[in-house]
């Protein structure tokens, strides 16, 4: 076995391997940053919609509120007539 030639191949492998690992993990860094950015952007409108959700859920509105709103509407109508 020609050790010199194998040594040259091993040196080459060392260089290629380290470059490969660094390039792959650097791409992964970029991808993770992009992913976090996108997830944060998509999460924003969702949290806004969840902030609106209590007003959309009419079943959950207390009876007292409905009574008060009905009374206000009735008063508005009475005033306008």
């Amino acid at each position, binding site marked *: *076995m020609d050790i010199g030639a194998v040594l040259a191949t091993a040196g080459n*492998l*060392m260089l290629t391997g380290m470059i490969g690992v660094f390039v*792959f*993990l*650097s791409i*992964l860094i970029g991808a993770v940053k992009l992913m976090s950015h996108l997830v944060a952007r*998509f999460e924003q409108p969702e949290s806004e919609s969840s902030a609106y959700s209590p007003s959309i859920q009419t079943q959950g509105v207390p009876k007292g509120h409905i009574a008060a709103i009905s009374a206000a509407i009735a008063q508005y109508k009475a005033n306008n007539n």
Partner: protein
Amino acid sequence: MEGLLNLWHATGIANFSIPALIMIAVGCLLLFLAIAKNFEPLLLLPIGFGAILTNIPVAGMSDPGGLLYAVYHVGIDTGIFPLLIFMGVGALTDFSALIANPRMLLLGAAAQFGIFATLFGAILLNFVPGFEFSLQDASAIAIIGGADGPTAIFLASKLAPDLLGAIAVAAYSYMALVPIIQPPIMRAFTTVEERKIEMPQLRKVSKKEKIVFPLMVLTLTAIFLPAAIPLVGMFCLGNLMKESGVVDRLSNSAQNEIINITTIFLGLAVGSKLAADKFLTVETLGILVLGALAFAIGTASGVFMAKGLNKISKTPINPLIGAAGVSAVPMAARVVNKVGLESNPHNFLLMHAMGPNVAGVLGSAVAAGILLALVG
């Protein structure tokens, strides 16, 4: 009389050879390390017992038809056992620290220099009479520096099955010795001021990010390095099962029953490779020396990378966390935390070290993929 003679020939005493007895002693040493010293007992206990079983004459546990022979061919020859363990490790891993600070991947990458430098060192050892490592052998030995048992066994079973026993024993022994090997190197290459550096608290990572992460790693591996897919794919599957939160039963099985059952048989199968004719060679000695070298170089290069990052980064980075880049989860991160506390009793680096620690797992899987693609 003839019956008695036949009975005598069927006893162990009549059949024991000196090399087999030495290997049984090695098995007992592994059992001692596991039970009395608590060195990686989950692996070293079944490996030690497997070594004893395989060297008992007449029983033929590792001969065709024997239990250990069958277990080895079913689980390790095919690569199934290390991959099942990798799935469990994925289900046990939390990537939050890495997602919060993705630059830590660079530390995981730098620590892989231990692998590639050792590859070169193994070939260099061929100048010493008695050593004849091929490029495949050297690659399988070098992966010890990845400090990742399943990855080392997977790669060794593909590239150098004859050296598998010695490589697995070296990998797990050195992983158990992380608290002894790493601190002197970490102290030697850092100043007291550097070790005192406190790092800002990590941001909270959302569930969505944690779910997308394994899928993203899988996609990138599929595109750039498909040779690493067996390892990375199973790892990502385990992690996705954990993070998705919809298959808790499967995730729990992967983390507990599957990984435990596989560990028993993986240990026995590795132990079955500790036969006298394969282990009692000068090459084993070389593997043990190269393995320690790989660990030391990996630790040092991680620390140097962290020092470099600290110089150019706006937020401070404690160079100690670079040492956790050699994987050996979570032992290496705990060691970083301990060494950090010695210099600054208020500095808890554990969470910060988990980033490079899990990056090291990915890094060694990627390095294994590269070696498989180039040498396999």
